[in-house]
Every structure is written in structure tokens, then in C-alpha cells.
């Protein structure tokens, strides 16, 4: 059974760089899970550094989700979306997270769902919706930017019963 408590979307084992950024309206509207990928967004007439959900490019990952269970009934409830900020993580982190793709891109389009198998040491990318995945969704979806050469990390430990089915990753952001 897990020996590390995993009661948040993104559990930090080793820290690296972090700072706060502004959030694009689209990200505030959709919400996000902790550990999900973001890329830079044009803040218009403002000079703020702003991010939106990644579509394969980065930025970095957001440490805390917008609406995590652990924040309910505390002063952190909806704090990030109300004040339009989040903590972005860059550099080399070791984290466990629920923010990873569990089914292949192709099977998510039309089904039936086909599970993705993760193996320690594999390269990780952001999926088209900003989740960790071990496949290149630009190539799979016919995106003109393919292939995606932006490796965002490596698998440290595959999801299993011993880690509460979280994906453990070393980031390279």
C-alpha cells in the first residue's frame, strides 16, 4: 500500500523552481487539476505573464488544482480562480500526480477505450489537453506541428497499487 499520503492532485517529492503567473480567462472558466501542463498566453494590453492549458507546448505545470477536495472549507477554496493566479512549476521536479492520460488519444476519439501502459524511464509529453502522456499526440492527431519534440519529463514510477495509481514523474521543464 502507499507509504506516502496522496490526498492532492500533485504530490511533491522533490522541489525545483516555482513562481506565480496570471491565468487566461479560458483556464479560469475550465478549471484545472494539480500537475497539469500550461503554456504561455498573450495577456493583451497587459504586461502580465499569463498561462493557458497546454496543447503540447510548455510553460510548466500548475502545482495546485483549481478546485481540489483538500482545499474545500478552507481559505483556499476557489482562491486561484477568484484572484486569477496560480503557482507554476518549472525545472526538475519529482512529483506524483493524477494529471496523466489513462487512455490512448485514438481510443478517446471514438472508443472503445484502450488503456495506456506507462513504464519507468519513458519520455513524457503534454497531451493536447495538458496532461502527462507517453505518446506524441501531435503525430497521432495529425497536428501540423508534429512531431512533438518537447519532452517534459520521464516516468519515475508507473501507476500501481503501491502509489495509489498516481504517475510519478521527473520533470524537465
Amino acid at each position, binding site marked *: 500500500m502507499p507509504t506516502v499520503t496522496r490526498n492532492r492532485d500533485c504530490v511533491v517529492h522533490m522541489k525545483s*523552481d516555482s*513562481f506565480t503567473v496570471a491565468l487566461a480567462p479560458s483556464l479560469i472558466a475550465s478549471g484545472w487539476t494539480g500537475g497539469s501542463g500550461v*503554456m*504561455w*498566453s*498573450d*495577456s493583451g*494590453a*497587459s*504586461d502580465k*505573464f499569463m498561462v493557458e492549458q497546454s496543447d503540447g*507546448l*510548455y*510553460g510548466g505545470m500548475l502545482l495546485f488544482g483549481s478546485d481540489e477536495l483538500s482545499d474545500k472549507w478552507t481559505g483556499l477554496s476557489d482562491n486561484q480562480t477568484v484572484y486569477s493566479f496560480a503557482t507554476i512549476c*518549472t*525545472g526538475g521536479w519529482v512529483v506524483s500526480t493524477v494529471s496523466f492520460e489513462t487512455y490512448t488519444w485514438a481510443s478517446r476519439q471514438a472508443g472503445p477505450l484502450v488503456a495506456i501502459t506507462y513504464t519507468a524511464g519513458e519520455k513524457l509529453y503534454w497531451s493536447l489537453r495538458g496532461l502527462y502522456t507517453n505518446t506524441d499526440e501531435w503525430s497521432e492527431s495529425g497536428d501540423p506541428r508534429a512531431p512533438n*519534440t518537447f519532452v517534459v519529463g520521464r516516468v519515475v514510477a508507473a501507476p500501481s497499487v503501491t502509489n495509489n495509481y498516481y504517475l510519478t514523474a521527473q520533470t524537465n*521543464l
Partner: protein
Amino acid sequence: MPTNPLIYSRDCLVWVMGDRYTVTVSDALVASGWPGGVGAMWVPGDNDERTVGLSDGRFGGFLLWGSSETPDQLTGLSDSQQTYRYATFCAGGWLMSTSTYETYTWASRQAGPLVPLTYGINDPLYFSLRGYWTNEQEMVLSGAGTNLFCGFVAQVPKRSTNYWLGIQTEL
């Protein structure tokens, strides 16, 4: 206008620091001078000092302070880097804004007329053949080799940023 026009007074403005240390600068770099935020690459040195020259598309990192920036004039920092042959060298992941980026396409700089270079948010960035940040792969365009990815556009040049380019470095 910029939110705070005073802070855009240097060639390279730092929002989040990465790794940095001092290096020796080459004779050519001392002679030419350099702007802050410019790309630098490793070159052979005279002795056991780690020595950098101006990037030709390859890197090491970027130089934090220019050799002769206006804010350094008439202070103890005037020409100190060139006189003592050192510079502060930046590597790793930085979030910074700089005026040291290409504003015209490589092709148009060869024979004109000049064509402005347009930067998009999240554009991958490289160093140009003269060490400026650019979203063109000038080593490929000129047949000099293959460019190495060194950052993303985090903020496009615009009036509110005094037309500085915001960059997340990957060095």
C-alpha cells in the same frame, strides 16, 4: 506604456532567476562589446578559465548585463566587464524580458528590403547567427548546421512591455 517604465531601463530584465556564474569573455567579445541578454557559447581560452564568445547559433547560455549599458554609465560599473574580462553568464530556466532579439528576418537582413519578424506566443526560440534571440532557425536557413532549441516566447513584444520580448529560457 509599460506598467512601470522605469524597469525597462536595462537590456535584460529578470523575472525569475535560473543558474548563473561568472565566465571569462574572449578577446573578440571584449573588442565588439555585447548587449545584455545576448547568447554566448564556449570558445577556447588562453588558460584554465571557462571562456565564452558571441553565440553563432550554438550556446552555452546568455550574458545578463551588456558591456556598456546606459544605466551603468558614470558609475563604478562603467566598462568593468570588458576591463576585467568577465561577464555574468546565465543557464538553466529563466523568465526574463530582453531587447536583444532579431526584429527582421534573416533573409531580409542579407539583401533587403527589411521584413519585420513576427513573434507569436509559445514560439520556440533559438539564437541567431549573431547571438540574438529569434524564432527563425538561422543555422538551417544559412546552411551552417542545426539550431538548438533554447526557449519559448512567454510574452510577445508589445507596447505594454516596451516592445521587449518575454522569454522562458531552456539552456
